[in-house]
């Protein structure tokens, strides 16, 4: 088999696995609900509850919904990634994943198909969020701001899916779902999710400062609260690249170990 044919086979396998991941939405709608509905509920709910925080001196926007909508983007991406892990755990429980491991498909292709489906699925919650947000008066971030936000959310969904894969391969049971969800929940909310860095208090002030997801959130947020600039973009891209390098390596390692 030539190198070109091999790449074509790998691409087809990846695409098949991605399509299967997308079909999960119709097959197991209950698993998709948190990823699709929860971010919109949180966005509306948190705006209603904490909307008056914008009256604090030093808050970077007058409308809290502009500040919180980008959190919903990453929350949707995170829950979609966690759902990928739960689906994989179910496949392991049912024995379907063992058949995949026995196939000649490289481990990298199996991982790519699984996690890239999360990148596509995240378009659902993000679109819903954007529509709800615009209906409630969110400032349009501009085409560049929106495209950047979509790109970062899709990549973050893939990183969260890698985390889900690691947990699924470690515990091999859907009972580990709370661990997947709690992990991504913390990663997104232990940032400047509720208020700018200067207004955070106690331990969260320090955790948010060193949490790489804060940089990704600020990059997604920039178009909603101001202009898109390279200075606010590159730290987010760098943080995402770093997280991707770590979680893709660990997920690949867990897949290779499982095969042994």
């Amino acid at each position, binding site marked *: 088999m030539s190198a070109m044919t091999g790449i074509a086979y790998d691409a087809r396998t990846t695409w098949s696995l991605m399509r299967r991941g997308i079909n999960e939405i119709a097959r197991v709608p*209950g698993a998709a*609900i*948190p990823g699709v*509905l*929860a971010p919109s*509920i*949180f966005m*509306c*709910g*948190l*705006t*209603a*509850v*904490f*909307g*008056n*925080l914008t*009256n*604090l001196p030093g808050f970077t926007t007058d409308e809290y919904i502009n500040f919180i909508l980008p959190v919903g983007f990453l929350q949707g991406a995170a829950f979609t990634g966690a759902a990928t892990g739960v689906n994989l755990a179910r496949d392991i429980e049912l024995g379907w994943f063992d058949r995949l491991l026995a196939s000649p498909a490289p481990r990298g292709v199996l991982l790519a198909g699984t996690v890239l489906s999360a990148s596509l699925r995240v378009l659902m919650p993000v679109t819903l969020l954007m529509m709800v947000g615009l209906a409630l008066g969110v400032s349009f971030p501009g085409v560049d701001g929106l495209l950047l936000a979509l790109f970062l959310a899709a990549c973050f969904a893939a990183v969260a899916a890698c985390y889900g894969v690691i947990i699924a391969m470690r515990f091999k049971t*859907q*009972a*580990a*779902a*709370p*661990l997947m*969800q*709690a992990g991504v*929940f*913390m990663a997104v*909310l*232990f940032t400047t*999710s*509720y*208020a700018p860095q200067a*207004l*955070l*208090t*106690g*331990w*969260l*002030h320090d*955790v948010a400062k060193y949490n790489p997801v804060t940089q990704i959130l600020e990059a997604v947020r920039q178009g909603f609260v101001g202009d898109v600039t390279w200075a606010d973009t590159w730290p987010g891209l760098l943080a995402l690249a770093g997280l991707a390098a770590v979680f893709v390596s660990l997920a690949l390692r867990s897949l290779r170990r499982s095969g042994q």
Partner: protein
Amino acid sequence: MTAAPVPARLRAPGFAARLRSEARVVGELGRRSVRQAFRRPQFLAPIIIFPTLFLAVNTGGAGRAVDLPQFPEVHGFLDFQLAGAMLQSTMLAGVSAAIALALDIEIGFIDRLFAAPIARASFVLGRLAATAVMGAISALWFLSVGLVFGAHIEGGVAGALVVIALVVLNATAFGTLGAALALKAKSASTAQGIFPLVFVILFLSSAFFPENLLLEPARTIAEWNPLSLIADGLRDPIISDLSLRPTLEALGGIAIVAGIGTALSVWGLRSRIQNA
């Protein structure tokens, strides 16, 4: 000729004996449900882990809210948030109970109980007893977390006991709603779908922020939401001295939830028995 005396073992048990027997059944079923919650992390996580994480984020993220001019006088934002965390935990305990009961229906466990010589309501009461226990665990957990991280309970020991009692009653009240949901839905995935609704109801109450500082229309809805009564009643002994009025109002809110839940449970149980 006089009839031969009926042997004691063949006599119909008296009311007290029947009550004792049913209490034992309820106790056993309750114990089974509590064990189930501790064995399966997906039942325990919504009651303890997620509300704790949410409490941590709310406290660190919105802690400066106490500087807002209309914010009530409190020792710290954590003190204010504890009631919201406990309320969230007990509501999610009700949903977890619904999922567990729906799973029991799915695997046929409840149908086997129907065939057993026990009162029909016993399995619902057993589940409620377990939810009450989970409520007590939740109250103790959040009060402990609060004290460890610097919260004050202004009402003292009596205030803490009132909070624990209210949380247990509240968990039981939401347990009745959970039982009704499970009996009507009959499927765990349908019962699971109610999770987002819990947050909608919570956000539209004074669980996380003072009612006067909520944005419209949440403020108006919160004024009519019985959950606001429960949240304010739970919060009062933590942020101020113990007083009767908020406690009675919280009991009123719990009674509304329990009344609706009990009526729906009875309805669900009847239709379940008819279909069995």
